[in-house]
């Protein structure tokens, strides 16, 4: 396929499926965009504008057709303190900076570094996200009546049971319509979206964030932007892999990084908050038959259309319905298989996963959890492979001894290694068999030099056998240096 054909295929290869799926996604996006705005502490319009801008822009510049990006919980959770301490304008600026950082990630092809985030950290990430979305809803229950509780229960019941009747209409939409109608006509007087913010039936307009352009501003927003950029890309690339798998196709990860960046910059300039790809919505999109770029485009456009036409209705959605939807989102985000299998996976993986979750829940910052998880995994990994096995065989006349070394020789394993040699034996020669060993760094060569030196002090000759090519090269380059300086 040439370029023009590919673009045509990605846009118009599946018109009917994409339009229908896009409409389904738009309907499911509205309550989430509003709820995520409320989590972040901003007006619902900020999340709705963000979802519109990001979905539409990403349909042109994203690397994974069929994936849905919009305002997300993971991102909303990161901006709570920024909004509370500095206000909305700083959020717009941070969103733009997030986009710039993400574009740099794409330009320098850093998507491949995602593989350094181990899967136990990714599992911890999604589980922490699920827990945070759930706990963010608890505030809506405070001081509420049993009417509100039963409305939440009704919402959840419809969400989970309605698909048994038909899957043609998204069950979250049915739940919201039913619960909203009950609230409006019964006059229960429970809190609605309108009590927490405004919905304006207007298209977003371009504006430059009203902030002082100074180093101080940058110092405020940069930590937020960096965390937003990393978390956004992490969730986007994970989602891209899931969509790859579901559709059995490939995607361009670096283009996706750039695309996420461009979309966030647009979002920031049009009064939206930072967003990223959404696992749940992307799965809904593919399941509903969407797989082309058109699906994300239609989702964004239809969402904006609905808000303009139905803005007055949307403010009447009770918070109970949104809380119910968010509880569903949290349940489906959580990776339940990780709980079922926690006793089966290696203990260190389980520790990393749990540590990631705890860090996020305590710090309210997904990026800190990921950072700690990656560091912890690295330490566990180093500890695991730093186990070196040394076995020795003596020759018949006891004049020669062969040491066989198994394992990775590097800074973490050398102290173990040296201790496993006996230097005071009355022998003439020692062979060190490194067939099953690999020398990795300066410390490895230093350790061998030290062993050699100690043997030579006792007038024992040392010979190496079975050094692999890479290890030999390293030894030739830096071997003997530490020995020479030791004398």
């Amino acid at each position: 396929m040439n370029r023009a054909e590919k673009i045509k295929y990605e846009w118009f290869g599946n018109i009917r499926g994409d339009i229908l799926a896009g409409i389904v996604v738009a309907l499911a996006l509205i309550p989430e965009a509003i709820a995520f705005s409320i989590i972040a502490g901003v007006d619902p319009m900020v999340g709705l504008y963000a979802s519109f801008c990001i979905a539409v822009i990403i349909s042109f510049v994203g690397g994974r057709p069929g994936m849905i990006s919009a305002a997300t919980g993971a991102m909303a959770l990161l901006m709570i303190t920024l909004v509370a301490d500095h206000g909305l304008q700083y959020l717009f600026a941070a969103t733009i900076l997030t986009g710039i950082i993400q574009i740099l990630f794409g330009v320098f092809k850093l998507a491949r570094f995602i593989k350094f985030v181990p899967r136990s950290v990714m599992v911890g990430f999604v589980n922490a996200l699920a827990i945070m979305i759930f706990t963010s809803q608890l505030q809506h229950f405070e001081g509420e009546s049993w009417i509100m509780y039963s409305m939440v229960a009704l919402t959840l019941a419809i969400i989970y049971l309605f698909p048994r009747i038909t899957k043609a209409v998204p069950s979250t939409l049915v739940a919201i319509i039913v619960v909203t109608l009950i609230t409006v006509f019964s006059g229960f007087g429970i809190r609605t979206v309108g009590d927490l913010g405004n919905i304006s039936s207007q298209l977003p307009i371009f504006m430059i964030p009203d902030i002082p352009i100074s180093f101080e501003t940058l110092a405020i927003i940069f930590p937020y932007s960096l965390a937003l950029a990393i978390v956004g890309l992490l969730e986007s690339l994970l989602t891209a892999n899931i969509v790859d798998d579901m559709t059995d196709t490939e995607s361009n990860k670096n283009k996706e990084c750039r695309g996420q960046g461009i979309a966030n910059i647009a979002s920031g300039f049009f009064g939206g908050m930072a967003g990223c790809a959404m696992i749940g919505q992307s799965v809904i999109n593919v399941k509903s038959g969407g797989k082309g770029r058109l699906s994300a485009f239609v989702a964004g456009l239809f969402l904006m259309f609905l808000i303009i036409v139905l803005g007055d209705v949307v403010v009447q959605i009770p918070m109970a319905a949104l809380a119910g939807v968010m509880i569903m989102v949290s349940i489906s985000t959580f990776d339940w298989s990780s709980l079922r299998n926690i006793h089966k996976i290696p203990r260190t993986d389980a520790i990393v996963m749990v540590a990631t979750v705890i860090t996020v829940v305590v710090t309210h910052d997904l990026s800190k959890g990921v950072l700690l998880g990656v560091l912890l995994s690295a330490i566990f990994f180093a500890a695991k492979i730093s186990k070196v096995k040394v076995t020795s065989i003596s020759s018949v006349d006891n004049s020669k001894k062969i040491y066989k070394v198994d394992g990775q020789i590097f800074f973490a394993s050398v102290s173990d290694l040296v201790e496993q040699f006996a230097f005071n034996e009355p022998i003439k020669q020692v062979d060190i068999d490194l067939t099953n060993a690999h020398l990795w760094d300066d410390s490895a060569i230093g350790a061998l030099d030290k062993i050699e030196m100690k043997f030579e002090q006792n007038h024992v000759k040392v010979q190496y056998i079975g050094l692999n090519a890479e290890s030999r090269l390293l030894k030739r380059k830096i071997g003997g240096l530490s020995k020479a300086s030791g004398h």
Partner: protein
Amino acid sequence: MYKKILLATDGSEHSVRAAEHAIEIAQLKNGTIDIVYVVDGNTSKTDVLHGVDKYEVKKEREEKIKPVKDKITSVGIPCETNILHGEPGPSIVEFANDNNYDLVVVGSRGLNKLQTMILGSVSHKILKRVQCPVLVVK
């Protein structure tokens, strides 16, 4: 009749038992058994989250249906495996109808009433919509 059999599997015990019945029938008529395994959206999510890369994900899935496949090939019946993506029920129905199978064999998961209400029964969907005879193994 019954020369071209499709065995729907999820790698579970139920589907191994279903395989035994498929083998019995195939041996009577000297037929072939093709395996179909459907990866749905949630399984995709879990597998990708826990897999290192797509090659490992693919390997793990093949590993999952291996007990069933081994059972069939060990008695010398030709067997091809197909891994599909989508909703299990409709995907199996479409695959079976498009490829003109003579018989579809499927294991029943043995869900209780509540689970059936929420999860739905794949075997029931297959039973209703596949054009050829269907054997549901309990």
